[in-house]
Structure formats: structure tokens, C-alpha cells
């Protein structure tokens, strides 16, 4: 079974996410750009996903919210740059809880042997922005202080 790999190197304001899917590239592309399909998979199962708009075209905007059972709602929005294609889906990404902290995401889809490798590069405005996002160990071992923080956060949650 394929696994999602998340890479975040110290000192570089980037996160790279890769995952191989057992489906042809065109289908994987549609799952990423058709809101009717996207709503069926994006986000954890226990969060209710609502897509306000998802205009997968050059200059098109998108916005969705995710809500948990406790009624907390988290909004995200962004803009597509260039017409999305399997070679590149380029869009900005902004969590509405941290306005102004914008990330540029580029997803590329490569087909090999009937499977499709999706590689998403997220470029942050600064290492600090990136680290704040991954602070609790989105990728373990980004750096020692990140690990310490993860331990601390775990302890806080249990206390």
C-alpha cells in the first residue's frame, strides 16, 4: 500500500508531499479539479467539508470550510494561477485563521505503469511561516526544537 511522504528540510521554506495512486493520471487530475469529486476526499473524515467555490481555471478562486462536531469552523481560500493541467496545478493557499500567511502550491501528476505519482510543493513566505505550520511535527525530526515542542504539546494535552 502506498504511503504519503511529507518532506520538510531545515532552512528551506518548503514542504513537499508525495503519494502514488493506483489510477490513471486523467482520473487523478479530475479528482483534484472537479469540486464534486474533491469534496468526496479532501480532509479528514470527521470534518464536514463545504466547498463555496472551486473555479479550476486561470485566475479562478476557491474557498472551502471544514467544520468539526464541536462547531469549530476553519476556512481556507486561494487563487488558481494558469489553467490547471496534469503537468501543473498551481494555486495559492491561505488559512483564514492566519491571514496574510500565503502559501504557493504546485501539484504535478506523473503517470507510470498505470499509476500516478502526485507531488505537491508548498512554498511558504518564510522558514518561520513554514515552521509555524509544521511546529508540532507534521514531519518528525525537522529539527530538535520541533521535536521538543511536539513532546511539550503532547504533555500539555494530557495534563
Amino acid at each position, binding site marked *: 500500500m*502506498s504511503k*504519503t511522504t*511529507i518532506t520538510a528540510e531545515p532552512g528551506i521554506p518548503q514542504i513537499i*508531499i508525495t*503519494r502514488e*495512486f*493506483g*489510477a*490513471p493520471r*486523467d*482520473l*487523478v487530475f*479530475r*479528482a483534484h479539479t*472537479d469540486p*464534486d*469529486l474533491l469534496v*468526496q*476526499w*479532501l*480532509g*479528514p*473524515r470527521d*470534518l464536514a467539508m463545504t466547498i463555496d467555490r472551486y473555479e479550476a481555471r486561470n485566475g479562478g478562486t476557491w474557498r472551502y470550510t471544514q467544520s468539526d462536531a464541536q462547531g469549530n469552523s*476553519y476556512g481556507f481560500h486561494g487563487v488558481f494561477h494558469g489553467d490547471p493541467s496534469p503537468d501543473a496545478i498551481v494555486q495559492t493557499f491561505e488559512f*483564514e*485563521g*492566519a*491571514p496574510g*500567511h500565503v502559501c504557493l502550491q504546485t501539484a504535478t501528476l506523473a503517470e507510470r*505503469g*498505470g499509476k500516478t505519482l502526485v507531488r505537491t510543493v508548498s512554498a511558504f513566505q518564510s522558514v*518561520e*511561516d513554514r*515552521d*509555524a*505550520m509544521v*511546529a*508540532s*511535527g*507534521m514531519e518528525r525530526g525537522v*529539527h530538535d*526544537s*520541533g521535536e*521538543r*515542542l511536539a*513532546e*511539550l*504539546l*503532547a*504533555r*500539555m*494535552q494530557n*495534563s
Partner: protein
Amino acid sequence: MAADRLSLVFGALADPTRRAILTRLADGEATVAELAAPFRVSQPAISKHLKVLEQAGLISRTRRATARLSRLEAEPLREVTTWLARYQRFWDESHERLDDLLAALQASQEHAPGHDPAATVKGNDDE
């Protein structure tokens, strides 16, 4: 959590010295001198960090005699943990769901070609 507070907390957590200070405070209250001891930085520099942490609501400070004690405030960290855990979980679970969806779309395409618009995809070209 209010949006600006989350930004403040993220900003405060982005610095390794400040994370180390929080780790130390998880063991109990401490004075500026005690917090500065493990670091190769001056007490004024530590005070600056403490101010950032205080503004983010991550610590509170009280006076005892001439000493100023810092104490960890756990609630903002809990809120951030909730958010970060969600972020961490996000892609793993999304991709599992996408796996399932792609399998379902391909299955419906095989069984009823052309009948399910969601599954209408171009066939694979020759490899």
C-alpha cells in the same frame, strides 16, 4: 480561537529559544535568570522572548518580592495542538479517501461505461 491570536501563537512558537523556554516552564514557574541560564543569551534577550510569549497568551508573569516569575499557560497550546494535529492528519486521511474514490470511480467505469458522468475519463493510451 480568534484568528489574530492563532497568528500570535504561531509567531511565538516559530522561535526555537521560545519553544525551549516553554519546555522549561512546563516543569514549573521560573525567574528570568533561571530561564536565561541554559542559553548563551543575555537576560534582556530572554525578557524580550518572554514578552512575545506573554502577548501570545502562552505565559503569564507575576512578581514575587523582587523576582518576576513566568508561568506556562496551557490553554493556547491546547488550541494550537488541536489545529496542528488536524493539519498533520489532513493529508494521510485525505489520500486514503482519494484512494477509495479512485477505486470506486474505476470500478463504476468498468461496469457501466459512459453511464456515470463522474467516472467519464479518457482511457489509457498505449503504454
